[in-house]
């Protein structure tokens, strides 16, 4: 058991910044998941698969545009839309007919979808490792008190709150946002008032999956794009959603923050067992506030 030799402010700041960049990806994916869970009441296990598809599509788009700066930006712009399109097809084709089923059934339905999508990815892209190139301006680190922080991580830290703000605006300032929040609370009433609930659900589902695809696209340059990415992420995303409060986007942010920071700070304190900290945090939260830290929509 080894404790880190010295813990002084520059290192803590460094770990916090790094933890925050990790938070962004987790938040983006988890926010999509919590939207779908909150409004449609579907625990979408296929969310991880969509994240993986987002990363693979980002790879293909980037390669098509020849890599480098254009490739990267085109990938980040196009991949989420591609994933959104796929999710629209899935939603209209399958989910739209099954909203009244029990949660357990819906959960297993999304699980079967995850199985199918996982193998489809293998069929289309094969088993090799893929990566996406970073644009030149994002490569390399910025030194911060003699410790390097990769520029791309700073970029991610900036993107996080931007997305959060965007979602907040969408939910509170647009008509569709307000209708969705109403539908989350009482779908029958919304339907009785004359709104086509089915299409509201479709839009929310597509937005949620768009976010999953975005997460995958944003993570593609710093990570090994491989089969099985979906499994590792989905459990973390679900735990974040649960501790944040079902359907609560700010809760997803809070949960992602807790997850990201407890891990990066935990590494500083106890490097050998840094991984335990976020899970311990989750269990603690659930024992004391089982419905999540912030208000859920159910």
């Amino acid at each position, binding site marked *: 058991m*080894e404790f*880190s*030799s*010295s813990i002084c402010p520059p*290192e803590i700041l*460094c*770990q916090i910044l*790094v*933890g925050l*960049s*990790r938070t962004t990806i987790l938040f983006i994916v988890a926010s999509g998941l919590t939207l779908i869970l909150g409004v449609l009441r579907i625990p979408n296990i296929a969310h991880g698969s969509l994240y993986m598809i987002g990363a693979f599509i980002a790879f293909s788009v980037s390669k098509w545009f020849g*890599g480098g700066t254009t490739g990267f930006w085109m990938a980040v712009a196009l991949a989420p839309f591609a994933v959104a399109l796929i999710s629209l097809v899935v939603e209209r084709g399958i989910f739209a007919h099954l909203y*009244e089923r029990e949660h357990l059934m819906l959960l297993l339905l999304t699980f079967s979808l995850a199985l199918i999508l*996982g*193998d489809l990815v*293998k069929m289309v892209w*094969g*088993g*090799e*490792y*893929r*990566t996406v*190139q*970073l644009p030149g301006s994002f*490569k*390399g*680190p910025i030194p911060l008190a003699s*410790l*390097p*922080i*990769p*520029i*791309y*991580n700073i970029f991610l830290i900036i993107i996080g709150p931007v997305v959060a703000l965007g979602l907040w605006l969408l939910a509170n300032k647009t008509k569709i946002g307000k209708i969705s929040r109403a539908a989350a609370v009482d779908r029958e009433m919304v339907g009785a008032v004359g709104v086509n609930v089915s299409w509201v659900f479709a839009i929310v589902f597509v937005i949620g999956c768009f976010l999953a695809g975005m997460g995958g696209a944003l*993570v593609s*340059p*710093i*990570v*090994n794009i*491989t*089969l*099985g990415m979906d499994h*590792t992420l989905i459990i973390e995303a679900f735990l974040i959603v649960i501790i944040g409060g079902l359907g609560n986007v700010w809760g997803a942010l809070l949960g992602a923050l807790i997850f990201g920071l407890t*891990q*990066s700070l935990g*590494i*500083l304190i106890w*490097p*050998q*067992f*840094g*991984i335990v900290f976020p899970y311990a945090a989750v269990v603690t939260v659930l024992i004391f506030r089982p419905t999540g830290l912030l208000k859920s929509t159910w």
Partner: protein
Amino acid sequence: MPYSKIGDDIIVRYEGPLDSSGMVGRLRPTGLLCGMGVDKESLMEAIMKKGVITGTGVVLVWFLAASFSFGADTIKVGIIDTYTGPATAYTFDVLDGFKMAVNKVNARGGAPGKKIEFLTRDEKFKPDIGLAMAKELVLKENVDVLMGTINSATALAVSDFARKERIPFFVTFSKSDKITGEQGHRYVFQITENTLMAGRAAAFELAKKPFVKYWIAGDDYEYGHAIADGVWTQLKKLKPGVQKLGESWWKVGETDFTPYITAILAAKPDFIIVATGGSGMVNFQKAAKATGLAQKVPFYQHTAIELSTLEPQGLDAPEGVYGTANYLFYYPDTSENKAFVEEFRKTYNRYPKIGALYGYVTGVLIEKGFAKAGKVDKEKFINAVQGMLIDSPVGKLELRACDHQLMLPMFFGVTKKVSQYPFLIASDIVIILAKDYMPTCEEIKALRK
């Protein structure tokens, strides 16, 4: 009302005088509606339900029937491996290398005079499935030889099974040293290097370098710890002055190493031994490139210089990373290696990675073993193949008789960008001969007690 069906909403307006609970008011219309047949499933639904059940049944029976193969007079090889998930990046090469060897043998008429046929099974990196498939291959398909896998847990379980069933089993990618070490036996052969061997080879070279203060980090699973232990124990033996400042272990599949890297840098070691495996290799190198780690503190990873790690990163891989590997397609520049690479590229349109060598050599061993034995007899095959010397793209290789471990040369080098390839390669390559880094027969014997 036959236009309504299950799932539709029907609104009933005012049914008559209400009683206190409203029960009668609710039951009567319900009864009427059901009497009209609205609660029965529609014809479409009924057909679909029957269809699903019969469909599943038909599929099952079809699979069952088709799985009865009537074995021709061939040498049957059963391959269990992971063809799903991140490990696939390595295992397809093993299969392709093996196929290349087998096609050559069969073109020549087989060995001896019998063609080699093979069956593959995907264990999805799950040992219980792998073991079940091994049993299926042996008990139902009656294979003569078993081959595979990248999952060490599966390899150990199948090895145990192979011993009971007395069938030879060639381990093609699993790196646990228990396979030919303490749990080794007559029926298991290991083609790939194991963690103990890799560690000792690395220590052999690192001991010659001036680094003193080490940090150890890696994937928190058996493979990671085994490699780290392998390197460190041997390094301490060869150079007692080295110090370990600390250790960091992250979960397997970790994608963001930056927090770990910054924490390690804060401790200021001279050198880092990074025990990552599989996709962790690329992820760590990406983080290393982003933080400029290799230029600040050099580090070593087993297979850092290998194509499977370097090719996906293209020209963005970090330079100056130390690594070991058992196969480099560009080195040594011998005619056998060139011919092998040429043939592989022509058949599969890509450069061969380490797995290709393992698969190819296994194919050659199986062919030569049965050819020497003269007939398809498992015991004779084992007697023939142990201690055998074969030609390979990396020179003459011996399948050591005392532990059934293939004696591969290990290459130690540093990553470097060159103009002729769109990916980095190893430079300053040193060849470490098998006899210099493998445990001796006496050590193996002591382990197996």
